C-alpha cells in the first residue's frame, strides 16, 4: 500500500484532486451568493443573521484553498482549513440527515437540479464523498511524515 502511494506520489495527486474539487465547488456559489444563502438556511444549524455573510465568504475560502492546494503556496494552512471545512461539511450534512431534513446540499450547485432523484440518497453520497476528501486532505497535511516512511 505504502509502495503504491509512493509510486504514484499520493500527496501530490491528493492536492490536485482536492484543489480541482474546491475550485469547482466555489465558482457557482461566488456567482450566486443569494441562492447559496438559501441553501445554508435549509441546514437550520446557524443563526439566520449570519447566513448571508457565510454565503459571501465561504466560497472564497474554498477558491483560495483550491488554488493553494494546486500551486503549493500556503500549503500547510490550506490543508488544515481543508480538513476543518470537510469535517464541518460532514457534520452538518449528517446532522441534517439524522434530523430527517431532506435538502439540496448546495455542495457544488446552488440551484436545484431537477435531474436529481432522491435527495436523501444524494445526502448519503455527499457524506461518503466528503469522508474520502477528508482522507486525502489528511494525507496532504502529513505529506512530510509520509515521505519519511521507508
Amino acid at each position: 500500500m505504502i509502495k503504491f502511494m509512493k509510486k504514484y506520489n499520493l500527496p501530490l495527486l491528493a492536492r490536485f484532486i482536492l484543489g480541482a474539487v474546491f475550485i469547482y465547488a466555489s465558482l457557482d456559489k461566488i456567482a450566486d451568493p443569494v441562492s447559496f444563502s438559501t441553501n445554508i438556511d435549509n441546514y437550520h444549524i446557524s443563526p439566520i443573521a449570519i447566513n448571508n455573510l457565510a454565503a459571501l465568504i465561504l466560497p472564497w475560502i474554498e477558491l483560495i484553498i483550491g488554488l493553494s492546494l494546486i500551486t503549493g503556496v500556503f500549503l500547510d494552512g490550506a490543508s488544515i482549513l481543508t480538513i476543518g471545512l470537510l469535517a464541518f461539511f460532514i457534520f452538518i450534512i449528517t446532522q441534517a440527515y439524522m434530523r430527517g431534513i431532506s435538502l439540496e446540499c448546495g455542495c457544488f450547485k446552488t440551484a436545484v437540479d431537477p435531474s436529481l432523484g432522491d435527495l436523501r440518497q444524494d445526502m448519503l453520497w455527499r457524506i461518503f464523498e466528503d469522508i474520502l476528501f477528508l482522507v486525502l486532505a489528511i494525507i496532504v497535511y502529513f505529506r512530510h511524515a509520509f515521505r519519511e516512511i521507508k
Partner: protein
Amino acid sequence: MMEKTIKQITFILLLSTLLGLARFYFLKDDDFTLIKVARVLQAAEVQVSDSGEAVFTIPDFMTEPMMASLEFTKYFFDNKKAVFVDARESEEFELSHITGAINIPFDYYDEYMDAIDVLKYDDIFIIYCSGGECSLSLDLADVFFGEKAFENVFVFEGGLPAWQDAGYPTE
C-alpha cells in the same frame, strides 16, 4: 512550524473575508443584506362571533402570503373553503398528508405546472410542509402569490407534524 501555519490560515481567512465583502459591493440585489433578517409573515386575523366561536376572515387584499395558525387551518379544513397544498416531495406525501391535500413539491414545481394551472386564482390556498424545519411551503407560497398571482395564499407553519399532533385527519 505551527505559528507559520496559523499565520497562513489567518491570511486565507482575511483575504476571503475581503473578497466576500467586495462581492457584496458588486452584488445588485437590494434584498440581500449583510446581516440577514428572518422573514416573518403576518398572521391571518381571527374574530370571535356572537356565539363565542372563532371566525377567520380573509383580507380583501393581500400584499404577500400570510401565516396560518393551526386553528385557522382547521377552520378552513372543516368548512372546505380552502385548497390544501403539500409542498413536500411525492414520496413523503404518499406516506401521509392532510386529508384532501394536493401535492406540488416545491423542488420540482416546474413539472407540476399543469396541476397548478387548473387551480382557480381566487381560491384560498393553505400550503404546508414538515413544520418549523421546513421552508418549502414558504417558497411555494411565493411562487403561488408572486409568479402565479393567486390572491389568497397562506402558509401553515406548523405543517404536518402540528396537524398530526392535534389528531386531525390525515390519509
